[in-house]
């Protein structure tokens, strides 16, 4: 176990080493040429953030004292609408000593293979390869996949045909994040909220799609911070195009909304209904009970919740509320959908 941990940490260090700078630059460049909604700033942010989580201490704590029952071959269907989103599963499979058979996302086909290449360059003793989705099924003893209910329904049928029992499958749903405001947020809180809402163009299963705010609070200060955030993380060129139809729709149906000058973000008031990426829904509450009822009604869909520290204390512990700005910086051991990936991989 310690061998692979050392190799992973060395590979992460190599990302920052001078001899790999040109390689990293090329990988980012080619990633940006693929049809996706990634920007250079967001890709660099994702690489630095995720690689920063991969330390010897974090990896050791993640696996803990757990032992792998039997080594096998694990297929991972990567969704990849956020740069490097499949890294956690790759690390989990490798740290458990399993063979990794990945299906790449068409939106991000270069970042994960680049990391595997560096690992192999460092002499890591791993089995990892990437294949087409159809090829994967014949090669794996277990599978990890994330998708909508319909997508998972399809994969379940395919898994069943391959004789993979439910215990050999880890399926995660299609989720999003929510932020809860009390009107006393600091400038730094709102900077964090802007990242939670707008980074990666609103994509990803942790991105904040709903802002739950007290009745009467106007979103002006949030909008100011959204605009400032766009100074650091400019919108992808496709974002205004996607949001312009949304904005026209809101205007045509007289739904209250606000947007950035160049349509690099859009906010609308209304019922707690999640909108397209980049369009955040502002939901009002009149009392704390209404916060609970809104969140509990959507509990199965919400991946993570952020709020200010004072408010966090008043919210149910089971919600596991984080701080503003944390949604796009998940720790290595976070459990998507509350499912323990390492636990699953040890049980195979």
């Amino acid at each position, binding site marked *: 176990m310690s061998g692979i941990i050392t190799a992973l940490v060395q590979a992460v260090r190599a990302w920052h080493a001078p001899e790999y700078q040109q390689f990293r630059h090329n990988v980012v460049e080619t990633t940006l040429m693929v049809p996706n909604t990634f920007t250079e700033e967001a890709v660099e942010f994702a690489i630095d953030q995720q690689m920063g989580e991969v330390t010897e201490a974090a990896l050791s704590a993640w696996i803990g004292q757990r032992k792998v029952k039997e080594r096998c071959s694990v297929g991972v269907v990567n*969704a990849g609408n956020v740069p490097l989103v499949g890294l956690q599963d790759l690390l989990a499979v490798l740290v458990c000593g399993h063979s990794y058979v990945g299906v790449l996302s068409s939106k991000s086909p270069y970042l994960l293979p680049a990391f595997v290449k560096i690992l192999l360059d460092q002499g890591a003793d791993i089995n990892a390869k990437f294949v087409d989705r159809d090829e994967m099924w014949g090669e794996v003893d277990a599978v990890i996949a994330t998708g*909508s209910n319909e997508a998972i329904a399809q994969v379940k049928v395919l898994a069943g045909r391959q004789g993979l029992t439910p215990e050999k499958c880890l399926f995660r749903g*299609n989720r999003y994040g929510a932020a809860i405001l009390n009107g006393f947020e600091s400038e730094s809180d709102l900077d964090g909220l802007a990242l939670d809402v707008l980074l990666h163009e609103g994509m990803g299963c942790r991105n904040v799609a709903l802002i739950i705010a007290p009745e009467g609070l106007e979103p002006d200060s949030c909008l100011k911070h959204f605009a400032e955030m766009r100074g650091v993380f400019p919108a992808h060129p496709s974002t205004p195009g996607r949001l312009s139809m949304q904005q026209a729709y809101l205007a045509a149906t007289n739904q209250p909304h606000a947007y950035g000058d160049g349509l690099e973000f859009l906010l609308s008031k209304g019922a707690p209904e999640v909108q397209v990426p980049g369009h955040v829904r502002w939901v009002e509450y009149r009392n704390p009970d209404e916060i609970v009822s809104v969140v509990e009604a959507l509990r199965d869909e919400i991946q993570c919740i952020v709020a200010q520290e004072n408010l966090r204390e008043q919210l149910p512990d089971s919600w596991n509320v984080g701080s503003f700005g944390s949604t796009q910086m998940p720790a290595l051991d976070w459990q998507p959908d509350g499912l323990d990936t390492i636990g699953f991989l040890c049980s195979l």
Partner: protein
Amino acid sequence: MTTADIEVRFTDLDSANSASFAAMERALEAYQRQHCPVYQRFGYKYLPVAAFKHAEVTTFPPAEAECVFKSSATGGALRSRHFVRRMAVYEASVCAAFEAVFGEGPYKIWAHLPGYAPESSLICMMKILMRKYGTGESQFFLSKRLPNVADTGTPLLLFGAAFGLLDLAETGPRQLPRDARIIETGGMKTHRRTITRDELHARLAAGFGIDEQRVWSEYGMCELMSQAYTQGGTVYRSPPWMRVRIVDPDAPNREMPDGKPGLLAITDLANLYTVSSILTEDLGVGRGQGFEVLGRFPGSAMRGCNFLLNSA
């Protein structure tokens, strides 16, 4: 070309004649742009289907509607309202689409639609079909007991929402006459979980004792006047006056190539007095002259990780 011309002629369209469709589509878009304030303000071609929840999408005073279809809704969610100016247009569309697939009948038509409100378009459609093509044994039924299945020589068509039919099949086993057909009308998300259309058809066939090729599907919605059908298998064919295009969810003005998934963008010429071109929240894929429906795909689905759209 006026709306009156289109009203009379849309069901005569031939799927081979795309020029006539295009001419009617253009004429209607211009008319609706001029007379429907929502569409005028919107400015794009495909109006998101949710507009029917938030606004009165009409080219005429809503009070003059002969009928208002309402979508089913869960909890306190808003319901779509489709103001139907002329029921004769709806009836013409429903009947022409049905006859193209099933002929003129007569059939013993059963409908199992538990939970559907009287103002749903599906209930209205079934009433029309029973009146026009049904024998006296045609009926709605809500209970878990099938009506008398004694074979009277008239072929049976069993229409039903997917989840309702599945519940019925699983409290079985049941045996329909071998020449019966089941037409599931959607609602893939059961009370328990989501299943694929293939799996649904296999389970319905087994549960009702008929061949899987005799399990067909209907695709329609409150906001559209017309319906598409599968005739065994999973590929829907729409009637010549209803064109289904598959578009990029990120840029609905961009059509996806055949075989690539995207949102269903539908132009239904029978939506004469509302808006003809609707952007649905359903994910589908083009298959030659037809299309498959892969499942629901609201805006929220574009956010989370989902390999359905983006596997390399």
